[in-house]
């Protein structure tokens, strides 16, 4: 099967190509071979054995990346037996990697990818340190085939949501994180003492402390969920103290401290349509993404509802309505998430050598009037079918045929 995929050569011809890494190219060809992008441009020689897709009048973009949600980790939100995103009970679950919880047979995968989302994050949930997030392509029969990068970061929660587990106060949450980080470094220095039980009890298990070491050595990002401005500032402070590679997520009041975030070089993951005030973020507003982008922050746009990860397009369109440029919004769901998650060498733009995740749209991908015409993931054209599409076919004419 893999051999079959690798053998495929596809030429998408005549479309307006948005490589994202550079300006759009009119009437261009995207040539795909062996799962990778082989050529992009207006003057590409098309091999005789290539399967041609005529994209004249169409828009061609990289597959969209949703940097949020629990794709593969949840089937029916209300049914506990189908939820795999939270490890129970462990306040510091740094060693919890969600990969083996992912269900490649999830119905959500087809529903999502036929809307042009080709890659998503699968994120752990709950607790103060939730675990390790992984990036998956929405194709493949096995977890191994789906995985694009594991882990891409360790998730920690500095928002109101994790306060109780952290000791009932934001101050206690920050102190506990510091204690865990120091313990991890101490554990690293004194592993022998630890195994001989010659150390004071530590604030987390050896496996969790071990898992935090790549974060503390700057090799793996810490993805921090924080919404209130003061929590964002705490995250920035912790990052300075421990020299962390920080990614801010949620970040509803981030626009208030956009300059500080920009100067710290910290990327931010935001959901554009967040604007309902809570005591966690009374300053939440639609303009968050655009104000951050204007300040020079690297912004990634999200759709956090896993079942409607497909609405990432609508989120991006609304980000444009509230001040982002169209080009910024496109980048914020393609190349920017690839960069932030450390896979820009393989994902996020239409450049030679990158994984061939490509979508052909009938028009502006953010518009409701636009149809997805072709989805290619890892160089293979995906049939535009889903369980939902089968329901439509069954009930389009009543009574149905069973």
């Amino acid at each position, binding site marked *: 099967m893999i051999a079959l995929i690798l053998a495929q050569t596809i030429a998408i011809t005549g479309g307006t190509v948005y490589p994202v890494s550079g300006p759009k190219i009119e009437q261009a060809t995207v040539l795909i071979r062996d799962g990778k992008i082989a050529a992009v441009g207006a003057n590409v020689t098309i091999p005789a054995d290539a399967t041609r897709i005529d994209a004249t009048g169409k828009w061609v973009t990289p597959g969209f990346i949703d940097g*949020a949600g*629990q794709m593969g980790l*949840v*089937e*029916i*939100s*209300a*049914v506990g037996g189908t*939820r795999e*995103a939270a490890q129970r009970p462990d306040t510091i679950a740094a060693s919890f990697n969600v990969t083996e919880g992912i269900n490649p047979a999830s*119905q959500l995968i087809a529903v999502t990818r036929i809307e042009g989302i080709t890659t998503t994050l699968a994120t*752990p*949930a*709950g607790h103060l340190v*939730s675990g390790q997030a992984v990036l998956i392509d929405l194709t493949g029969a096995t977890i191994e085939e789906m995985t694009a990068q594991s882990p891409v970061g360790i*998730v920690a929660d500095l*928002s109101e*949501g994790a306060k109780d587990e952290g000791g009932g106060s934001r101050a206690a949450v920050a102190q506990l994180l510091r204690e865990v980080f120091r313990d991890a470094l101490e554990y690293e220095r004194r592993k022998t003492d630890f195994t001989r039980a010659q150390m004071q009890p530590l604030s987390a298990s050896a496996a969790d402390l071990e898992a935090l070491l790549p974060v503390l050595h700057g090799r793996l990002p810490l993805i921090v*969920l924080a919404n209130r*401005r003061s929590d964002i500032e705490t995250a920035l402070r912790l990052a300075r103290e421990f020299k962390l590679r920080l990614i801010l*997520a*949620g970040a509803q009041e981030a*626009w*208030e*401290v*956009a*300059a500080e975030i920009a100067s710290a070089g910290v990327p931010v*993951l935001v*959901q554009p*349509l*967040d*604007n*309902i*005030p*809570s*005591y966690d973020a*009374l*300053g939440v507003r639609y303009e968050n993404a655009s104000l951050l982008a204007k300040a020079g922050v690297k912004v990634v746009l*999200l759709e*956090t509802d*896993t*079942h*409607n990860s497909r609405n990432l397009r*609508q989120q991006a*369109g*609304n980000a*444009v*309505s509230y001040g982002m440029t169209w080009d910024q919004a496109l980048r914020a769901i393609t190349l920017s998430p690839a960069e932030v998650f450390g896979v820009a060498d393989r994902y996020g733009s239409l450049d030679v050598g990158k994984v061939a995740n490509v979508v052909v749209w009938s028009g502006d991908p*953010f*518009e*409701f*009037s636009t149809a997805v015409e072709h989805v290619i993931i890892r160089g293979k054209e995906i049939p535009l079918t889903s369980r*939902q599409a089968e*329901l*439509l076919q069954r*009930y*389009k004419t*009543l*009574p*149905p045929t069973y």
Partner: protein
Amino acid sequence: MRLVWLTLPVLAACATASGHPASQAPTPAESTSVQRAQYPSTYHRHANAPVVIRNATIMTATGQEIPNGSILFRDGRIVAVGATVEAPADAVVVDATGKFVTPGVIDTHSHLGVYAAPGTDAESDGNEATNPVTAEVWAEHSFWPQDPQIPLAIAGGVTTIQALPGSANLIGGRSAILKLIPARTVQEMKFPGAPYGLKMACGENPKRVYRSRGPSTRMGNMAGYRAAFIQAEQYRQRWDKWDANHQGDPPQRDLKLETLAEVLRGHILVQNHCYRADEMAQMLDLAHEFGFKIRAFHHAVEAYKIADLLAREGTAVAVWADWWGFKEEAMDGIHENAALVQAAGGRPTIHSDSESGIQRLNQEAGKAMYYGRRAGIDITRDQALRWFTANAAWVLGIDSLVGTLEPGKMADVVVWSADPFSVYAKALQVYNDGWLVYDRNDPAHQPRTDFELGQEPVPGADR
């Protein structure tokens, strides 16, 4: 409710409606068992100069789309709509070149005010989850006019909502039909002349909430509705008999049965949260057993499976464009639901059930329209517009008053920056009964609730 980043999804608060020829607004007649005035509306129209909006694409929700058209309203009523409209000298003239004008957005399913923001326990006033049947409670008695979500919805073009109790109960209580305007009291928002709705709920929610005491099954749910309506029939008979001759002492008042008796008399409209096709068919049988109509099924993610039945019954649906999968009874939600109900001759509306979604019902209708078209279902722009205007007005029993741009209708009017079915469209001006309640380009017309005062951060400033 929007899900918070990285958290497990939570159950949606609840979630339907369909249609046929415009009915008369049911008369909110005095309940015959109650001679006193009940919690009257104190709504007053704000006085303002006549307004003429020119050079816009006018989408009337009556089948017409008028390019370069104009609309004139005065004293809260639409006076003229057309290619050319004579404006009086004292009219405020709005040049809307390149803009679009529609009727005010109507959300048939909202929990604004009863589940106010911030979403704390103290503001959680939507579910009287102490008994499976609480027909005696009224949403207006929970409604908080200072909910900061209200101005956000107004900025999305919303002019009227149905604020409903939640879906924990088989029978959750009366809804409130409200003009969405800044106000000190809910009474000032109560839509004059609107009938009440009665929230009912099928399926998973009631049987989950009451599993330890019952009902704990779908058959238990059905038995619960039937027991309540049997009581209501008897109550209605006692009062009808007494009303006829006034002999002896009047029967004892019972708040719960008073509301249900009004449903049986056709004065209160049943708004029924129900997801699955087979359950909707059961509820239609229940309505037949007791001789009432179900005005609309809300959420109704499987309405498309029985679109023919719903059209025959004249029951509307209030649906989302795309919610699905958050619980088992929502697994079969498809984008084409509204379009298929329309094609079968039913009456769809697009509802929000969400403080976030209510801000862009135009986008959700656009989404549902285009998915329908791509499936080969011929949905017109006017039909899709009616999904959040005229059809929604019918669901609430106020379609003779609002929902279209026609002379004589209340001047609930939205000016959009672009085609309202575009993701890029924003409401620029919102007129409620002729009052400019929101103007995107004028801070003087951007109302803020008490809650927001002093809370608005300034970038980079000390707080």
